[in-house]
């Protein structure tokens, strides 16, 4: 009950060659810069592009294997897809967009519409059931596109930059709804994104693609805390802390994090490694977040060094090689980490 894929496609300029393993009930994020081959990888899973080499196997069924000439057509794959541009059928109402997949699979028109109406009502969109896509807001259209993909009860759900088309205000809210929907989805879900925040808030596992190759793969916590390359670190390496927010205070394990803006509920707090200041004595600066830490590891990387810290909150700090030299910190020593509240970003989970 999982997806195992080795995706090899010849592209202009470079070859895409990535391995993907995804488990049902988990969300895998494929992260990488634009043009890295992420969308092409999705298209091979969907069946709108064919592999040149490799193999795609979903729940024990081979979908594509050029070596033996197996290729399952998109309409027979039961793969749901949400495109960056959504691609809702402009001539059909929201209801008929969602009902489309059921109708194609032989459900009667009235049953398919009833099912679509129930799905819309569950998201509070019953008033938009008869609206054409052009009349929907960005957030509404995104939800309709997701419902349309989920209506066929896909074994695999693909989301290509699902939030990229939204404006920043709707984005947060839609992201939260999407997370909730993905939590309730039992199949394999894959999200392609170039926005680290999307990956950090939506995914359980991460694959970082760079120039058609996997730069790093692992659980979200592993990859964000221990990026194996400068590139991965820049793309997604950060401190991701989950906690309970009340006002500007977030409680996470034994630590309290102070935010600049109040927020309520279950949140992710992102603490950029480069925003963390280290010093040997308790800081007297204005930074409200300060924790005594033990140095667990020092990883020099060019002009900068990543310092792994253990304490009330496991953190990675990134400092320049110069300050590393002047601090003279050693593994096992105690140091104070401080960070300004304004440097933190909190996202409702």
């Amino acid at each position, binding site marked *: 009950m999982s997806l195992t894929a080795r995706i090899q496609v010849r592209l202009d300029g470079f070859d895409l060659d990535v391995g993907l393993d995804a488990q049902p009930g988990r969300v895998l994020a494929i992260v990488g810069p634009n043009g890295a081959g992420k969308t092409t990888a999705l298209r091979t899973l*969907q*069946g*709108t592009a064919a592999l040149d080499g490799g193999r795609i196997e979903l729940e024990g069924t081979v979908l594509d294997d050029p070596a033996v000439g197996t290729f399952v*057509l*998109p*309409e*027979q*794959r*039961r*793969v*749901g*897809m949400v*495109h960056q*541009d959504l*691609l809702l*059928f*402009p*001539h*059909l109402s929201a209801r008929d967009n969602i009902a*489309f*997949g059921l*109708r*194609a*699979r032989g459900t009667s028109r009235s049953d398919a519409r009833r099912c679509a109406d129930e799905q819309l009502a569950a998201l509070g969109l019953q008033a938009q059931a008869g609206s054409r896509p052009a009349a929907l807001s960005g957030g509404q259209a995104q939800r309709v596109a997701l419902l*349309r993909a989920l209506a*066929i009860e896909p074994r695999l759900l693909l989301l290509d930059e699902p939030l990229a088309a939204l404006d920043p205000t709707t984005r947060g809210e839609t992201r939260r709804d999407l997370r909730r929907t993905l939590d309730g989805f039992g199949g394999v879900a894959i999200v392609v994104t170039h926005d680290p925040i999307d990956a950090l808030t939506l995914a359980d596992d991460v694959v970082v693609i760079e120039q058609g190759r996997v730069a790093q793969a692992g659980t979200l916590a592993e990859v964000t805390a221990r990026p194996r390359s400068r590139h991965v670190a820049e793309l997604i390496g950060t401190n991701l802390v989950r906690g309970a927010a009340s006002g500007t205070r977030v409680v996470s394990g034994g630590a309290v994090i102070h935010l600049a803006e109040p927020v309520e509920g279950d949140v992710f707090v992102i603490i950029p490694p480069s925003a963390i200041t280290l010093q040997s004595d308790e800081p007297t600066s204005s930074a409200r977040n300060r924790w005594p830490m033990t140095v667990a590891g020092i990883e020099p990387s060019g002009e900068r060094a990543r310092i792994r810290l253990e304490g009330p909150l496991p953190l990675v700090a990134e400092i320049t090689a110069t300050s590393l030299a002047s601090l003279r910190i050693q593994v096992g020593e105690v140091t104070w980490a401080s960070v300004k509240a304004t440097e933190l970003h909190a996202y409702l989970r």
Partner: protein
Amino acid sequence: MLAAAALAILLFALPLIGLLQRADWSRVVDDLRSPASAAAMRLSITTSLAATVLAIALGLPLAWLLARTDIPGRAVIRALVLLPMVLPPVVGGVALLAAFSRRSPLGSWLYDAFGIQLTFSRAGVVLAEAFVAMPFFVITVEAALRSLDPRFEQVAAGLGASPAQVFRRVTLPLIAPAVAAGAILSWARALGEFGATITFAGNIAGRTRTLPLEIYLQLESDPQAAIALSLVLLLVSFAVLIGLRDRWLGGARP
């Protein structure tokens, strides 16, 4: 510059004014009701509609073939399809005659095997009109298919729709405006067809004598009747222009 442009406008306007001015409005209705005129109009309407149906039925798959597939010799096929648009219609009629007359291999086989004679028959009128009119339908629909984002069809397939379902439920509705425009355009062309019809199907009253043929004939004997019938075709042309104004006259279409 301006004078030349004004001259050009006059070139288009003067014949129109002449036609309206020469018409004897008191007897236009009677002229149109004469048995010969009525028969020609009835024939023209039925044959042009039949030719349009034929153009849609054959033109839709052809447009799809040209827009969406990579068959070898596509450029040649397109040139062949567009040829009737630039070919003098009378040459088209001669060519149809060469292919389908009872003296040709195909024509004699059709007659011997099925008793079908296309020359000098109503079916021949329909064939001649479709030959001349179908290219208008094909290029209009092909252009629409080309500008249609193929990802809509991919999405539909991904949702489980068979190729036939994709075409019927997604492709066709999305290109419907172009299909309608192409159909109107080819119907108007079929309605006005003269050269190929008279050459291939002849000029038999009540059977192959369509409106344009009747006009040509009446011009000798009864010019007022010819003008009355011309007004009918003029009216139709105007209606088509108004119907397609969004496409051609830079209307509301974004």
